[in-house]
C-alpha cells in the first residue's frame, strides 16, 4: 500500500495505539499496583498511577516472602523457575537435535515410522497426558524434585521437526566434503552441524525457555512443598488465600518479577541470533 493521505495515517495510528493500549494495560496495572500499599485496594478502585511503596513491596517479596501464607521468597521461587526453564530448554534442544540428526543422517529400518510417531505427538498437548504422567512421576518418587519438574516436559516434537528441516536444508556436498575430510558421524555433528545450526538453537532456546518458565499446570500439580514452588505457580497460590483479601500489591510485584527473566532472555538472545543470522551462510 503506497498511499499518502494524512487521514489514513491518523486512522492507522489510532488503530495501533488502541491495540497497544489493550495489550499493555494489564501490564501497566500490574506495574502500578506493585507500588502501592495493600490497603489501597480495599476501596475496590484500582489506582492508575504509581504509589510510594515500591521499595517496600519488592524487597519484602524478594527477601522474606509472605510467611503467613506459607510463601517462600520470590527470589527462591524464581531460582526454582530458572532451574526448570533452563532444564526444559536445554533438555529439549539436546534431545531433539540428536533425534533429528539420527532421522536425517542415518539409514535404519523404521526411520520414517520413528519420525511420524514423533510427529504425531505434536498433536497431543501436555494436558491430555497429564494424569498418566503424574502417575509415572509419582511412582518414580519424583514429586517435589527438579527432575520431576523437568523430565516430563523435556521431549519436543516441534523442535525435532524444526531441526529435521534445518538438517535437510544443509547441502549434501558439505556432508560429503566432511566424509572425505575424514570426519565420522559424531565429529561431523560437533564440528559442522552444531556450529551451523547455532542460530536455530538460539531461536529455539528463547522459545523453549519462555515455554518452560511459563509452565503453570504441571508445577502446580507436582510441587507440594513450598521450597519447590515455581514463581508462575506461586502467583496462583498467593491469590487464593482463605479468610482474607488477596494482597494485590505483593501479587503484582511477584507478577512483574516473573515477567523479567523471559524479557531479558528475549532481549539478549535476540541480539545473538540476529547476529548469527547475518553471519551464517549455508
Amino acid at each position, binding site marked *: 500500500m503506497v498511499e499518502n493521505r494524512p487521514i489514513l495515517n491518523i486512522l492507522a495510528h489510532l488503530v495501533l495505539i488502541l491495540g497497544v493500549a489493550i495489550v499493555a494495560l494489564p501490564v501497566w496495572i500490574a506495574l502500578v499496583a506493585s507500588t502501592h500499599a495493600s490497603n489501597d485496594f480495599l476501596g475496590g478502585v484500582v489506582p492508575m498511577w504509581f504509589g510510594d511503596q515500591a521499595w517496600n513491596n519488592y524487597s519484602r517479596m524478594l527477601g522474606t516472602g509472605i510467611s503467613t501464607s506459607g510463601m517462600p521468597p520470590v527470589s527462591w521461587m524464581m531460582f526454582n523457575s530458572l532451574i526448570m526453564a533452563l532444564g526444559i530448554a536445554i533438555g529439549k534442544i539436546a534431545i531433539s537435535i540428536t533425534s533429528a540428526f539420527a532421522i536425517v543422517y542415518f539409514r535404519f529400518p523404521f526411520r520414517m515410522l520413528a519420525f511420524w510417531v514423533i510427529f504425531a505427538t505434536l498433536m497431543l498437548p501436555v494436558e491430555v497426558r497429564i494424569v498418566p504422567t503424574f502417575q509415572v512421576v509419582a511412582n518414580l518418587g519424583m514429586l517435589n524434585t527438579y527432575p520431576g519438574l523437568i523430565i516430563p516436559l523435556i521431549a519436543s516434537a516441534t523442535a525435532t521437526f524444526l531441526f529435521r528441516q534445518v538438517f535437510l536444508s544443509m547441502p549434501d556436498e558439505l556432508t560429503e*566434503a566432511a566424509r572425505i575430510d575424514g570426519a565420522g558421524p559424531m565429529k561431523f555433528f560437533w*564440528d559442522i552441524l552444531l556450529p551451523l545450526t547455532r542460530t536455530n538453537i538460539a531461536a529455539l532456546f528463547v522459545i523453549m525457555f519462555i515455554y518452560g518458565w511459563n509452565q503453570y499446570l504441571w508445577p502446580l500439580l507436582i510441587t507440594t512443598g513450598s521450597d519447590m514452588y515455581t514463581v508462575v505457580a506461586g502467583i496462583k497460590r498467593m491469590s487464593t488465600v482463605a479468610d482474607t483479601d488477596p494482597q494485590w500489591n505483593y501479587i503484582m510485584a511477584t507478577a512483574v518479577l516473573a515477567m523479567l527473566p523471559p524479557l531479558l532472555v528475549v532481549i539478549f538472545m535476540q541480539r545473538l541470533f540476529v547476529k548469527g543470522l547475518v553471519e551464517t551462510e549455508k
Partner: protein
Amino acid sequence: MASITLDNVGKVYPGGTRAIGDVNIDIADGEFIVLVGPSGCGKSTLLRMVAGLETITEGQIRIGDRVVNDVEPMDRDIAMVFQNYALYPHMSVRQNLAYGLKNRGTSKADIEKRVAEAAEILQIGPFLDRKPRALSGGQRQRVAMGRAIVREPAAFLFDEPLSNLDAKLRVTMRLEIKELQRRLGTTSIYVTHDQLEAMTLADRLVVLSAGKVEQIGTPLEVYRKPASTFVAGFIGSPAMNLIKASSVPHLPGTAHAGMIGIRPEDLTVSADGPIQMKVAAVEELGAQRLVHGHIGGDAATVTMASDATLSDDLNLTYRPGSLHLFHPETGKRID
C-alpha cells in the same frame, strides 16, 4: 601418487535403474583424465563412485594396487573439489584447509607447514583468516583446491569445479588448474559438461553418454576421429554437422556411410561446390561469422570470414579428407 583402474565398473540403483554400465578406464599415474558428457550421462556418479560417495554395484575400482570398492572415502587417499566448493562456512580459510589434516591426526607443525605451502601455491595467503563468505567465487574455488592440495592425496577428483564461475574467470582458473596439476603431478579425474574445458585440460578424454563410455582418447584423437555420431556432435564448437548421406549428392568414398560428418570449419563457399545449404540465420562473432541453415533436412553450420558475401543459398565444398563417415545403424565410425 597412484594409478586408478576402473574394471567393468557399473552401478544399478536399488530400483533397477542403471546409471553406469561396464566402464573400463586405466588411468596412469599423474595423468589428467576428463570425464565429459551431457548432463545426466552418469559422469558425476562415476566420479563419486571413485570417491566412495556412491556404492559400486558391479566391477572393481583400484587406486594403486588396492581394491577400494568397500573402502571409506577418507581412507581412499583422494581429495575432491566440489561444484559448490563445499567450504565449511563457519570456519576460516585456514581452518577449512586444516580440517582434513586435523582429523587424520597430523601434527600441528606439519599442518601449519602444509597450509602455508598450499596458500603460497594458490596465492590465498592474505585470506587465510577470513571466512569463506568474505571471498569471491574465484577465491573460494582456490580455497577448495587448497583443501585438496594440503592433503597430498593419491588423486584429485574435480566435480565440475568451474561451473559456478563467470566465463572469464573460468578460462583463467582452467589454466591454473592445468598448471597446478602439471606441477604437482597428481593423478586427476575431472568431470565437466563443457567440451571446451574438457579439450583444454585433458591428457585423455572419456566421453560418456547414458552411462556408457563412447570413446577414450587424447583430445586431438577424439576431435579428429570421433568414434560415433554422439562424440562427433558433442566434441568441437561449433558442433560437427551430421548429415544423412542420402540428403547430399553422392560424395566420393561415402558409399557405406549412413551419416556424414563435416566440421563447420572444413566447409567453404564455392560456386561449383557439391553441397547445397539453405541459410536460416547468421551469427556474427567478430573474427568470423557462423552461418546456420539446412543441408537436406539436417541443421548445419558453416564458419565464414566476416567479410564474405552472403546469399540465401550457398554452394559448399569441403576440405579433402575432412569427411567423417558413420555407420547407418550403429552410428559408429567407419574408417
